[in-house]
């Protein structure tokens, strides 16, 4: 994303729309710090520039990753799904991606509002998690960036890319879910960002939630608000 200095009037209307504070002012004109810009398009979509000075320049690999992870309406062409992750639990009534006895994890790195995150920080977490032998979701855009899904290591040329947030998705047996959360707690001190943790579980016939019980018993209470996929989807 670029601001045309010849068109900018210096009104500063665009500045507050940047989630990572990449828009600054210099000599009374707005400019975008390309090191920080995540290509999320929020400033452009906001349509607040009175002279249309903001425009999207062509972006090549690996910078293009920034847009995939940061722009909510960008579509990851390999899966046809918009946004940073997969359909995860949302369509589990159709895909059965998560079966009884399995637990899914979504580690949303940089969220909420950490001011952006380098993929190098994401790499620290994915490599620690990989040591536990988890299966990274093959449809997740981040998994595509791994040099090796066994080690969780991201490709060298993407590590310095800066994004609003990125989601690590994987699944494990239910019996391993407490160990995963303990590991995430240990990693907490070693990362220079925040991450939000989501845990996916099937609901039993009696409406109990096995992962919730296991986590509660281990001293990791789940928050009272979350997502519930209903039993309405089907393939005709």
């Amino acid at each position, binding site marked *: 994303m670029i601001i045309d200095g010849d068109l900018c009037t210096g009104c500063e209307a665009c500045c507050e729309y940047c989630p990572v504070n990449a828009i600054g002012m210099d000599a009374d004109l707005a400019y975008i710090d390309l090191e920080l810009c995540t290509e999320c398009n929020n400033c452009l979509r906001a349509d607040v520039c009175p002279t249309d000075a903001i425009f999207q320049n062509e972006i090549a690999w690996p910078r293009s990753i920034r847009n995939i992870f940061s722009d909510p309406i960008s579509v990851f062409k390999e899966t046809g799904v918009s946004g940073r992750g997969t359909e995860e*639990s949302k369509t589990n009534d*159709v895909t059965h991606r998560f079966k009884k006895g399995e637990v*899914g994890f979504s580690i949303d790195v940089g969220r*909420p*509002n950490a001011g952006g995150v380098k993929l190098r920080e994401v790499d620290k977490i994915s490599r620690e998690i990989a040591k536990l032998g988890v299966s990274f979701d093959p449809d997740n855009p981040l998994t595509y960036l791994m040099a090796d899904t066994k080690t969780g290591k991201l490709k060298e040329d993407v590590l310095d890319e800066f994004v609003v947030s990125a989601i690590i998705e994987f699944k494990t047996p239910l019996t391993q879910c407490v160990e995963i959360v303990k590991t995430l707690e240990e990693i907490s001190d070693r990362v220079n960002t925040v991450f939000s943790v989501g845990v996916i579980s099937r609901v039993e016939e009696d409406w109990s939630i096995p992962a919730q019980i296991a986590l509660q018993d281990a001293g990791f209470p789940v928050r009272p608000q979350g997502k*519930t996929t209903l039993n*309405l989807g089907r393939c005709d």
Partner: protein
Amino acid sequence: MTHTLHRRLEVEIKGEDFIILCMATQGYNDKGAGEKLKKVYKLVASTNPDNLADDNLGGRFTGRTDQEILENMLDRAYVGAAYTDRSRLKDALEKIKTADLGMSVVVTGNYSAAFSVLKEIGLKPHTVNMSLGVFGKKELLPQKEILAVSTMCGHGMVTKQRIENMIEDVKQKQCSAQDGGEKLASTCTCGIFNPKLAAEMLKQTTE
């Protein structure tokens, strides 16, 4: 995408916080899904939601009309609607259930409230995605009043700076809390940001 998870309305506020998402599954039942999702959009619109969008196209507060959205909806559409009370949530879910379109439906909100609505209308939960909250360097987080508003856009497009400026505008009476809430919703393309709750938050922060 986990964009409706991890909302942090941890302040006393008038109104509940529910979201409905409805979509096809890519590669399974997405062929021709656009027409079904249009029906869902119309059904949900009839329940007077606080926000409504197709996240590929934007929504009522991003400058799109319902007509425009319906005319441009694709098979990979995501219908998103926000509510501040369970009676309208119930109404919408009942209508979707009766239409029996075979699309996946997700409800985000307090589990105990959402489950009781499901029981009342004879629907069953299949899978849950639960939040364990925030880990890592928490000192990077904004204060809880800002988070309460910003986390309603899980993609981070309602920025801290914008919320702070809006609080100032409401304080200075340059705009009402209601207008402020609606303006903040303008950068959430998914329809999951609730402008009514944002207005409540602005009112409370500025009183």
